[in-house]
């Protein structure tokens, strides 16, 4: 069997075993004496009302859409950071231009009020 697959198998096994082991040990080790009060949502947790398929306010979507964009842009920052010294001032200016474009977008979003929670 080719050894090239070994890491994949190890990864698969660890990934599957981790939650199983964690939950099992917790179950075996902890004392178990449930009461009504204990089973309620913890401290400041909010009581679940209805099912989780309900609709969310549109605000959540807008924030998440904005998050997706600004989050993914960091993919260009990492390679630059890794090669920071080799790229020198040229890289700094390039990244500054890139960030300036992002900031234009950010200012526009901010001024449009998309980040305000009404």
């Amino acid at each position, binding site marked *: 069997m080719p050894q090239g697959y070994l890491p994949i198998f190890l990864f698969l096994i660890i990934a599957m075993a981790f939650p199983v082991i964690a939950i099992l040990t917790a179950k075996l080790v902890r004392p178990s004496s449930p009461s009504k009060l204990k089973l309620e949502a913890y401290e400041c947790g909010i009581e679940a009302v209805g099912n989780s398929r309900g609709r969310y306010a549109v605000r959540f979507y807008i924030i998440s859409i904005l998050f997706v964009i600004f989050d993914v842009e960091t993919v260009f920052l990492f390679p630059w950071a890794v090669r920071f010294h080799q*790229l020198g001032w*040229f*890289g700094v200016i390039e990244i500054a231009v890139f960030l300036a*474009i992002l900031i*234009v977008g950010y*200012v*526009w979003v901010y*001024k449009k009020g998309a980040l305000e929670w009404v």
Partner: protein
Amino acid sequence: MITYTSTDHFVLLPGLLLALFGCAVLLLDFLFPKDVKGRGWLVGIALSGVGFASWQSWQQYLYLKAHSMTPLVAFNGALVLDGFALFFNGIVLASAALVMLISYRYLEDEKEHHTEYYALVLFAACGAFFLNGGLDMVTIFVGLELMAVSFYILVGFLRTDKRSNEAAMKYLLLGGFSTGFLIYGFSIFYGLTGSTNLAALATVIPARGANDPLLYLAIVTTLVGLLFKIGAAPFHMWAPDTYEGAPTTVTAFLAVASKTASFALLLRVMLVGLGTAREMWEPLLTGAAVLTLTIGNLAAISQSNVKRLLAYSSIGHAGYVLLGLIAGNQTGLIGVSIYLLTYAFSTIGAFLVLIALRRRGVAVETIEDLASLGKRYPYYALLMLLFLMSLAGLPPTAGFIGKYYIFLSLVESGKYGLAIVGALYVAVSLYYYFRLVRSMFLTESIEAQVLAPSNGVRLVLALTGIATIAMGILPEPFLRMAAISLGR
């Protein structure tokens, strides 16, 4: 070593100006008052952006002319400045300027006048520039998506209009689908060459042989993506719905800028990258062209919505342009360039007549709405007649020159069958264009109302009308422009 040379700067500058002015319009929006006058200023700024980019493109032309049209390669071969890119940039700039001029009143009437519109037009034009001049698959991809994403938003710009939403959604989904195919093809090209540059592709093909299955797969998937973008059958389904639902100004821009830039990309990929694999893609493109002509022209016959009819006719036009590429000789390539140029002006003009005829809250969309136009508004009716004649390819209008060169190239290269098919569908197209003409001139009169088109609409109508006539009567300067696109 990565650098930014003065050559890079010179080649990039027009596109850079468009992007900068787009950002400026976005930000200055907050400084100007939110009224008709404030928006007018911003339209002026956006137009000046196109003006500066045009000026810089002119400088590029002068430079190339002084250096006997030798292509100028920038960014380590990612971007090229040649006559071809310049010619198509010119069409994009002209259409962007014309569309901005006519959009002002239209958006006010729709009560959706946000200045982001102009920024998006500038961004779309910027993306088109990178399609026209891109030689690297990364540059092409990013340019294509910049243009496409801007257009998705523009198509859905009338947020409360159901048809506009629907058009945007269909365009988005089918556009994303086609992009997937295109870059899947690109990824295989990368696998074959080890480089993302189109020029490198040309050197590898002879070594791979003509029947390499992987190369064939790459060509087919790339073609699927490209045919989608130019709106050719069998991947044309998005076009009628998108053209019908989009704001009419955006429809005009989409039909011209997006289509010509996508054709520029198609030509670049086929002739630069895959020029040596002609026997592999020519049969595929021939089939697509015949199918495109058939579907575009036959489906147009039964349409009652004028925008939809023009959408199908625009699909048909894509078929004629493909014929020019299939003919493959110099005449054919000049034909492609001149056809796209004449098509640009006639199409903007035809959609513009529809825009001019709309009254507050009443859109002119069906063929019945055009009834007795000849009596009600003779000038508009005559202009519409002119644009339709040009689209049908009748002399003495611009469209005739385009069709003439396409057919000439087919005859020269001995593809008589395709020439006959093309001629047949010209006859079919005459039939459905005549339906519009009959509605305008030969139907009962209905009551005329006062029209108040803006000065921008009048100006653009005059410009497109003059251009359509001038190209038909005096084709010489325009043919010289088309020759520039071939680097001569």
